[in-house]
């Protein structure tokens, strides 16, 4: 579990920074954009009037060329290096936004996993597709964007072969297995955490532990389908049971009662088409079909337990180091 993208504002007051390592890219009326080259670029915006710089980008991509994994030590070393090159102290900079997430191996395909994560209360849901394939979902409110996406696809399509080999060798990525990235993008940390966050604070062990637990909490806000137990006998899966399985799965997510909806619908059909006896017969068949469907306590696509185990392990490792 680690930090990824970050945006920091550093107020310079009377100080200035070194531009020796910066490559000027564009000049705008209020600011100049520079690139700082590493494995991937970071953006450094300089606003002379406001006497501030903004550093934006993914530190793992800048340092390692990928965001599969980056340690606390990587971040520390990366910012020590940046501070040395820019001749400033970014640790006292204010964090405007950042991402914290993890990559988790999952037992089913990424597409299937994403299909079964439906919505999160109080958040706008959005899907990302490549052709017909679902590649990601995002749930967003005013201060937070929670993203889940097919990370294997990104690794295979966006990273060069050498980096893919590094990830396999160093972090155990297996291209035959399935991985999902769960990421919380804090758009307004000052609103989410009720106060400005400085980089030094963000990198503290206590804050990192809090972020891990918050990631789990945010993930658990997502409502999942996949709670039904598929009948084991072929005879129990007729053309009538399949739509009912779907209805039952959506019951909890959308807060309705499938049987009541069906009953209400039947009532709206005029008696000259369906007599009361016909209605009773239809309802009886539907109830028989509903009896074949049983619900498990948790969705089979819910990876909360895996995340909990990962958090425990990460906290333990952090404490013994």
């Amino acid at each position, binding site marked *: 579990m680690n930090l990824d993208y970050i945006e920091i504002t550093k107020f310079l007051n009377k100080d200035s920074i*070194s531009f*020796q*390592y910066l490559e000027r890219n564009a000049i705008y009326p209020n600011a100049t954009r520079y690139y700082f*080259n*590493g*494995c991937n670029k970071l953006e450094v915006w300089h606003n002379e009037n406001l006497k501030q710089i903004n550093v934006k980008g993914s530190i793992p991509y*800048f*340092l*390692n*060329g990928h965001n599969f994994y980056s340690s606390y030590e*990587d971040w520390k*070393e990366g910012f*020590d*290096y940046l501070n*040395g*090159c820019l*001749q400033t102290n970014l640790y006292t900079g204010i964090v405007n936004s950042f991402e914290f997430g993890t990559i988790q191996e999952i037992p089913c395909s990424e597409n299937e996993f994403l299909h079964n994560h439906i919505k999160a209360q109080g958040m706008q849901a959005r899907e990302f597709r490549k052709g017909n394939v679902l590649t990601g979902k995002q749930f967003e409110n005013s201060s937070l964007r929670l993203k889940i996406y097919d990370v294997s696809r990104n690794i295979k399509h966006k990273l060069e072969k*050498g*980096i893919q080999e*590094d990830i396999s060798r160093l972090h155990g990525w297996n291209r035959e297995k399935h991985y999902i990235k769960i990421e919380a993008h804090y758009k307004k940390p000052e609103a989410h955490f009720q106060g400005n966050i400085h980089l030094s604070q963000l990198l503290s062990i206590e804050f990192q532990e809090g972020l891990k637990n918050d990631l789990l909490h945010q993930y658990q806000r997502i409502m999942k389908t996949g709670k039904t137990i598929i009948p084991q006998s072929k005879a129990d899966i007729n053309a009538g049971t399949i739509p009912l399985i779907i209805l039952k799965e959506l019951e909890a997510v959308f807060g309705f009662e499938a049987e009541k909806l069906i009953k209400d619908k039947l009532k709206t059909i005029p008696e000259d088409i369906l007599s009361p006896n016909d209605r009773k017969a239809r309802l009886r068949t539907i109830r028989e079909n509903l009896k074949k469907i049983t619900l498990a306590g948790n969705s089979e696509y819910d990876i909360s337990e895996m995340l909990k185990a990962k958090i425990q392990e990460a906290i333990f490792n952090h404490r013994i180091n």
Partner: protein
Amino acid sequence: MNARFIESCHIPLAYERKEGTKTSYYLTMGKPEVLPTRISFGSYAQQKSSKNDETKKSEINGQYRKEEKGLYFNLNNRKIHSSIWGNAEYPEFYGYGIIDERFGIYDLLIFYSENECNQSFEIHIFKGMGKPELMKQAFQYLSAIKTRKPTFA
């Protein structure tokens, strides 16, 4: 630091002594517009007594021509300078220098030569890695490259 990151900070250059001169070396390989095309190699200043924990082996000095461009062009009136110090932990290298602590820049220069820098040498610049905590990683990275066993297809 990851080897891939160090690679992104690494600029290799090769210089060769101009025939008929003792200390004048010209860029023969590597990215232009980094160091001046011509640099002089040889000691001009004595080692300060305060630096007796290290052995000064030589110096490089150079000045960009007015029409030249370079990484350090604006640093010190087009002039570059670095002392070259030995590093006992990495005897495969002639030594190292830093450009230019006086201006808050910490670019590490590692010198490699097959002829004790009498005829030619390579300068491996590692941007921003001249601080003690990063220097060792640059040496390790370059040593791994220089001592890599040849592979046969």
